[in-house]
């Protein structure tokens, strides 16, 4: 009964309320966008990094030694490995493909499992000591070792995201995955490792599988991961650099620390997030002020009506809650329209985010708008409650 009456009041001032509602609608959409991004980042942030990056350095080299002879190639890199390993500050090292953590390099492909295709699979290639160098956790099966040379199907290690997508709760070890859709390229899973967030703290790890490095991979490799002791200094880094540069005379060498690379890759997600949050909060303040102003003015306009209601026995609380209800109904109407637009995102699967992220963002935006409208009508409502019927009616 009371709501019906309130609707009537709103309908009578539809022209003015229409503008207010459009404003609320737009602020809802903006907040929805901002919250979606924030929830998405937070969701990724709270997942584990998957490895220990603190004391790991990446050595890049190019234009390396080329030979047709596999033995001398193996020999060449074995000597390099031994001379680096011999340094007291080096704990472990590993040769691997270009797509190292926190870099912009990617190598993606497609795999097939039970006739189902999975796109955007990251293909990493690494040697036997990679898992130890990166301190990755093996949750099932094992990492590569020398016995894998003789395996019939190509052995692979998958990350936990891939396991969840392909096998769900079941066991992954022993399963066969097809590389692309070529039946001859069968790969057998021998282990599962915790996914590494290769694109930094705020980005998802994505699907990934590791292939074992062989002599052929040494021809195109260009990265060495080196785990050092915590007390490794710049002086040592200079020595490591000289060792490498003197051994690989024709190569350009670069040494980077994963801690720094993590900071800079995070930077690229954090800056847009900060800018959007600032813009979003500016818009929210703007809307709040506008709403407050209009509501406040409306109450001054309706002194006669409010005075009359007080005169016929409505309490101050009843009057103020009527005004708050009125603005809440306005907010609800625009939120219904806004939710209709927002709900299309999970339904049409725009941007490939999980529905949970959109829904949490929607709930957050709805709560935020209600809170904003409530706070903005609180003071004007209290003012209305303070109107003396005699004074208000006297003015008429």
């Amino acid at each position: 009964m009371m709501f019906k009456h309130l609707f009537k009041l709103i309908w009578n001032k539809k022209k003015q309320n229409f503008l207010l509602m459009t404003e609320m609608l737009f602020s809802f959409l903006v907040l929805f966008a901002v919250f979606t991004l924030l929830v998405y980042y937070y969701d990724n942030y709270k997942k584990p990094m998957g490895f220990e990056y603190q004391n790991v350095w990446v050595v890049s080299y190019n234009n390396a030694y080329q030979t047709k002879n596999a033995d001398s190639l193996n020999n060449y890199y074995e000597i390099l490995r031994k001379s680096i390993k011999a340094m007291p500050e080096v704990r472990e090292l590993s040769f691997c493909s270009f797509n190292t953590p926190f870099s912009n390099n990617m190598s993606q492909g497609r795999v097939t499992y039970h006739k189902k295709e999975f796109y955007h699979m990251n293909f990493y290639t690494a040697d036997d000591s990679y898992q130890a160098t990166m301190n990755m956790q093996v949750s099932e099966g094992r990492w590569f070792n020398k016995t894998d040379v003789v395996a019939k199907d190509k052995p692979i290690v998958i990350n936990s995201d891939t396991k969840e997508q392909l096998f769900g709760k079941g066991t992954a070890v022993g399963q066969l995955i097809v590389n692309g859709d070529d039946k001859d390229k069968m790969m057998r899973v021998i282990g599962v490792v915790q996914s590494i967030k290769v694109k930094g703290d705020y980005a998802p790890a994505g699907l990934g599988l590791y292939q074992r490095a062989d002599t052929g991979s040494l021809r195109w490799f260009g990265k060495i991961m080196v785990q050092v002791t915590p007390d490794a200094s710049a002086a040592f880094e200079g020595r490591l650099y000289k060792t490498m540069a003197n051994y690989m005379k024709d190569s350009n060498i670069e040494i980077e620390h994963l801690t720094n690379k993590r900071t800079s890759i995070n930077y690229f997600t954090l800056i847009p997030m900060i800018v959007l949050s600032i813009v979003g909060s500016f818009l929210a303040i703007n809307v709040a002020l506008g709403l407050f102003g209009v509501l406040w003015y409306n109450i001054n306009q309706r002194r006669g009506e409010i005075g009359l209601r007080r005169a016929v026995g409505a309490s101050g609380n009843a009057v103020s809650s009527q005004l708050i209800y009125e603005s809440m109904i306005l907010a609800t109407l625009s939120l219904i329209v806004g939710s209709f637009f927002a709900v299309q995102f999970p339904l049409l699967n725009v941007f490939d985010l999980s529905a949970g992220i959109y829904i949490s963002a929607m709930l957050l935006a709805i709560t935020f708008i209600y809170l904003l409208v409530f706070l903005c009508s609180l003071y004007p409502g209290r003012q209305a409650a303070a109107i003396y019927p005699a004074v208000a009616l006297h003015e008429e």
Partner: protein
Amino acid sequence: MLKNYFKIAIAVLRRRKFFTFISLFGISFTLTILLVLTAFLDKVVGDSYPDRKRDRSLYVTRLQESGKDGQSSSTLSYYFLSHFVGSLKTPVKLGISTIYEGTNTYVNNKKIAVNYKYTNADYWDIMEYDFTEGKAFSKQQIDNVDKVAVISEDMKSEYFGDIPSVIGKYIEADNVKYRVIGVVKNVPITSYTLYSDIYLPYTVSKTDLTKGKGYLGGSTAVLLAKSAADVPRMRDEYDAMMRRIPMESKQFNKMYSHAESYIRSYVDTGNEGMSGVTIVITTIVIFVLLVTVLPTLNLVNINITRIMERSSEIGVRKAFGASSGTLVYQFLVENIILTLLGGLIGVVLSFIAIQVINSFHLIPNLILSINFTVLGIGLLVCFFFGLLSGVYPAWRMSKLNVVTALKAQ
């Protein structure tokens, strides 16, 4: 008359201080956001240091090869640029440089990260780097495979410390000693085809750039025409050349590469099917719409409220014979005064915001500034705002009935 409107406007603004504050807040902050955005865009794509001859230059940054089994897209090889692009008739100069790459050097047990790039001699003729000392390397020095280097000011102070001149001194990078022959003003990393800490002759590269006949590699090129009028002809000649060149291998059947203006090459997505220009413009338009629509709605709301408050004044004026046109005019003038006032505050705020952003050094050497273009855009935006948020309320006002307006009191 205008003077009267001005007086009325000021009086109205002072009467309802809270509403004035809301309006000014909305206008000035929106303007600040837009001004900072334009200052950023202006710096990133509009700044013409060191390539001041942009109006007669075209940029080649990418080659895409497509085939049945996929595609590859990358910067080009030195061979492709010198052999094919070098045979064009229209360009008077062809500057070729590799994309910067990183290495380290260690001085007194301190690590310095160094980005280096290799260039040819024409590169220095096209680019107008500001040399604080010394000069660029010549064709002679390149042909002699002299180990000489041009370094940036940042590199100078980081490697050598605070000394007046470094010409003739040696800088060690990548385990090789180079003799410094020039120091240039810094280029921000956002100009990624021109930025570097150390510039070296392409002949001293450890990877022999002139060897091999692959099309893809790590280089980009700038083509300089004789005059701005020759640029379209140069573009056509480039396209004609692309149609003539044989495929690199049998696995590809299509090849794309363009000589484009700086901005087009800057926002290139690396994929022929996706236009970077469209994506960038769409993103900017959506952002600007979001940032402006809400404050405009807010202003319209506030303005309507204010008009209703002044219904008695309007009633009286109408009763004494003022036409709707006069009233709309008056209201628009008032509104534009308000927005311009907000604009003024906005400019001050942007100035402060830009100083703060600069002091954070978010991107090294990217110093934002409010220039006259940015200021002009800001004023235009203000004016547009004033009209936009004033038209609807003014129209509502002019429809006000004299009798009801007077009776309302």
